[in-house]
């Protein structure tokens, strides 16, 4: 079983739309993992039926027991985040959960042991069946909760488990955006990375930065240029970059309203249209499989 991770650096390049189409083409041969938990959208296209759900805890948060608190205020003195407050109306010390980073300093200095540190609720994860008959693992963050390497790792782990049980060949991961901790966690354990980009200055800029991480982990990668015909000049710059880094071009897709039409219909491109674009996505999928299998 091999893990294919789709990332883009910049948002809005069509990463999720491409992932959803590949998921449909792969059918039961793969399990899909949505690690773009900040803006988890894959479920809108794959309409998964939830079979299992579980609460997820990540990071810590402090809590003051008002019955034990002796009102000494030492906790507030040591807190570097200004997260411990004493509102004048109640006079009771409380933790501002939005500011608390869960360091636990307050719990160590409290002379009355009135402060406990516990795992913070940060959302739910689900295992579902999609309309292709394959499995999908996805998550929903609680409002204001932080995406973390841990949640991404959990989603991927569960997807791997499902793939092993179902005898699937691939885990297809809709990776996290940006270049921070979640994307690094998305990449860990990957056999191949698909970079989805578009010919805009900002997308190219972010592509370069995210590829630095891919290269650092020595994972092989291929590239899909979406909205390719939008700007031939920048497209050429991207092609130059791919050549320099020896990244195969898996295929290009045109700038076409059919993408948003399909999304609005709650479908993937390959289901919505049987035209030339579907053919191109099919070529990308086959090219991708050749690249993945040519690497041990």
């Amino acid at each position, binding site marked *: 079983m*091999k893990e294919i991770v789709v990332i883009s650096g910049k948002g809005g390049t069509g990463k999720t739309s491409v992932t959803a189409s590949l998921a449909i083409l792969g059918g039961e041969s793969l399990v899909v993992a949505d690690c773009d938990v900040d803006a988890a959208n894959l479920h809108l296209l794959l309409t998964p039926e939830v079979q299992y759900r579980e609460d997820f805890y*990540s*990071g810590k948060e402090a809590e003051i027991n008002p019955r034990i608190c002796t009102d000494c205020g030492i906790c507030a003195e040591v807190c570097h985040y200004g997260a411990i407050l004493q509102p004048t109306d109640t006079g009771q010390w409380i933790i501002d959960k939005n500011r608390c980073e869960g360091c636990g300093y307050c719990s160590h200095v409290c002379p009355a042991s009135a402060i406990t540190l516990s795992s913070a609720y940060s959302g739910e994860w689900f295992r579902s069946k999609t309309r292709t008959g394959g499995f999908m693992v996805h998550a929903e963050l609680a409002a204001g909760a*932080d995406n*973390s*390497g841990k949640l991404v*790792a959990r989603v991927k782990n569960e997807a791997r488990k499902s793939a092993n049980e179902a005898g699937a060949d691939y885990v297809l991961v809709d990776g996290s955006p940006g270049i921070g901790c979640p994307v690094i966690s998305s990449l860990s*354990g*990957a056999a191949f990375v698909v970079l989805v980009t578009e010919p805009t200055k900002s997308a190219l800029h972010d592509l370069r930065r995210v590829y630095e991480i891919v290269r650092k982990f*020595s994972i092989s990668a291929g590239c899909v240029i979406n909205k390719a015909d939008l700007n031939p000049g920048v497209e050429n710059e991207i092609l130059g970059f791919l050549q320099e880094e020896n990244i195969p071009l898996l295929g290009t897709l045109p700038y076409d309203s059919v993408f948003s039409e399909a999304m609005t219909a709650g479908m993937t491109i390959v289901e919505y249209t049987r035209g030339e674009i579907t053919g191109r996505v099919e070529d990308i999928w086959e090219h991708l499989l050749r690249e993945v299998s040519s690497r041990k």
Partner: protein
Amino acid sequence: MRVVITAAGREWDSQVDQRFGRAACFFCYNDEDGTIQIIDNQSAAGEAHGAGTKAAATVAEYEPQVLITGNGPGQNAESVLSRTGVEVYIGAGGMTVKEAYDAWCGGKLSRA
């Protein structure tokens, strides 16, 4: 010699866990007396951040000479491991623990 392999399970035929910081467990083998010890990595794998440094500290306690893994530890974990003098070998992803150990014995794995 003490060898540690990142593993998804507790047996010789378990899969190697590609990851280091969030590996399921560490399969520790002492090839002088043939003893096997499994170090659970739950506590590091369950960290929101900094799983790598914590896992490296856990591995360090076993005082291994060799560590075998898949993609290789990240930068932070690597600098913890370098203090212990352990030699890190990568590229064992997709193998079982036994296969990885044999591949290392046969000099088929590369240094991180």
